[in-house]
């Protein structure tokens, strides 16, 4: 969601604006080095694509639908520098013409939704594609995790800005828990769509996926007079794109990463209010503390001093949360499948139950 005017106070908005301007300047130099004079038309068309794809509705269930935010997708497809430029331009024009996001909050919006999302997504993506074997499936799996991590990361960045310069004192633990909770769910949707879209591009034009330049598979060789020579660049993927692929690996990776995320992120989520509590006590303003986000959680029983227990309970809560989500999700899938004409034909549906 775009941040409007009056949400973050003026000094922090200005500081975020300066940061965003710096990031855009760095991206401009980098993109010009990467694309030289092709930058303007290509980045412009990619920006138009992001703007259009945000209007593509993905129905979830019962009349609700979501849409792609596109930060992770842009980072993977065109690289981090061009992606930052494209998203900044989209946010700028949305702010000026569509009043979507405040003008003074433009810096905040570019920082949170442009820079943080793109940088986190690209870093995670490159890390995972480096670790996993060079195969198309590991590229889509990396895209899944990258998008999944990038959305809560941008929510966390927003919470940080709100903590420094928010105009209303909502307990920051509550803001953080609510933001991360909602955005992990949004992130799962974003991750599925991003992975599927990257997979679709990879099947047709693997050379266009910036994050895996050189192609996920070994480069194509031609046999000329008995000797192998490199095929000319920009060849088509020899594999037919229509072959049905199992997405079980994708689902398993997603589930494992969701569990890991819940385990680690929830630790920080529950650690953060502790730090704030201490600050509040130091400042002598802890009368508000009984309204604290973590007060009602089972974590409160473990005591603040015992970190090992806090970590365990936080991680446990996260894992339980993900399990609950999976159970509810499976239930939704089953209901949908019962309504569908051909039960169990969609591969990801079946695999989800297996996983």
């Amino acid at each position, binding site marked *: 969601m*775009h941040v*409007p*005017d009056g949400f973050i106070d003026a000094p922090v908005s200005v500081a975020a604006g300066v940061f965003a301007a710096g990031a855009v300047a760095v991206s401009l130099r980098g993109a010009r080095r990467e694309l030289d004079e092709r930058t303007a038309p290509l980045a412009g*068309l990619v920006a138009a694509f992001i703007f259009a794809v945000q209007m593509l509705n993905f129905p*979830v269930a019962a009349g609700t639908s979501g849409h792609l935010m596109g930060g992770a997708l842009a980072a993977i497809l065109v690289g981090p520098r061009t992606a930052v430029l494209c998203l900044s*331009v989209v946010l700028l024009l949305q702010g000026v013409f569509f009043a979507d996001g405040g*003008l003074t909050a433009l810096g905040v919006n570019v920082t949170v939704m442009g820079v943080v999302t793109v940088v986190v997504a690209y870093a995670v993506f490159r890390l995972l594609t480096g670790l996993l074997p060079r195969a198309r499936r590991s590229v889509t799996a990396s895209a899944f995790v990258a998008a999944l991590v990038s959305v809560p990361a941008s929510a966390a960045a927003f919470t940080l800005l709100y903590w420094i310069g928010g105009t209303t004192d*909502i307990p920051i633990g509550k803001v953080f828990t609510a933001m991360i909770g909602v955005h992990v769910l949004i992130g799962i949707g974003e991750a599925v769509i991003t992975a599927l879209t990257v997979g679709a591009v990879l099947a047709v034009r693997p050379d266009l996926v910036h994050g895996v330049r050189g192609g996920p598979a070994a480069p194509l060789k031609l046999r000329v007079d008995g000797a192998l020579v490199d095929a000319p660049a920009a060849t088509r993927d020899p594999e037919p794109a229509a072959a049905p692929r199992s997405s079980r690996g994708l689902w398993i990776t997603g589930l494992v990463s969701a569990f890991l995320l819940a385990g680690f992120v929830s630790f920080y989520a529950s650690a953060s209010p502790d730090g704030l509590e201490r600050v509040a006590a130091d400042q002598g303003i802890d009368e508000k503390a009984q309204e604290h986000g973590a007060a009602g959680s089972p974590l409160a029983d473990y005591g603040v001093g015992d970190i090992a227990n806090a970590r365990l309970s936080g991680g446990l809560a996260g894992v339980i949360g993900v399990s609950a989500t999976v159970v509810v999700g499976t239930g939704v899938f089953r209901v949908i499948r019962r309504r569908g004409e051909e039960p169990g034909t969609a591969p990801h549906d079946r695999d989800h139950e297996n996983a």
Partner: protein
Amino acid sequence: MGAGHAHKLYRQGHSPVHGLPPHCKLVAVFCFVLVVVCTPREAMWAFGLYAALLGAVAAAARIPAGFLLKRLVVEVPFVAFALLMPFVVPGEQTTVLGVSVSVPGLWGAWNVLAKATLGVAASVLLASTTELRAVLLGLQRLKLPPLLVQIASFMIRYGDVVTDEMRRMAIARRSRGFEARGVRQWRVLAASAGALFIRSYERGERVHLAMVSRGYAGTMPVIDEVTADRRQWAYAATLPVLALAVCLLGWTL
């Protein structure tokens, strides 16, 4: 928040506001919103005066109130968020219409609602009195990096082309009996998104080649430099200066 962007934004007219150079208007709107954000929320009357100022601008630009109000719908998601604030913010409690709400929460909700509404209204006035292309010229005049302005202008020029491409793909899907009902159809939709990316990127390559063949070397020639004289600057500055006076009164009273 991509939905609902298709409506016509610019409203043709020949008012003094329409005639102002775009960079003057951009600076004026930005300063106005900055002043609004800096106003203390306790000075409720100040926000009423700001709204009156914007109303005066709308009258000068001959923008009907209905048009303006319809465009304010953009902020609905935020109104929902602001309405939650009185119930989640801790602090001194008070009773409004028999419901217990917190006083700091009420102030916070008022703060966000007032400032965001004024910001949206100012942006809407800017967008409805200034053509897209003129805004880009104004941004260029305000020393936004030329490359960024070029990217933005390409996005605006080809935004409708890409959106139309997406619409044609949707028609093609529907004419083959496809209906998006739930998560199971995401694979097809994502494949469309992937195809849309490839088409956009390839169009970008073609556009670049066409431009190179016409002598493009990385910069666009400036053929219509926008200029503003002192009188126009003074006219545009009326709004932020009056707003600043209100803001200073708000701090001192």
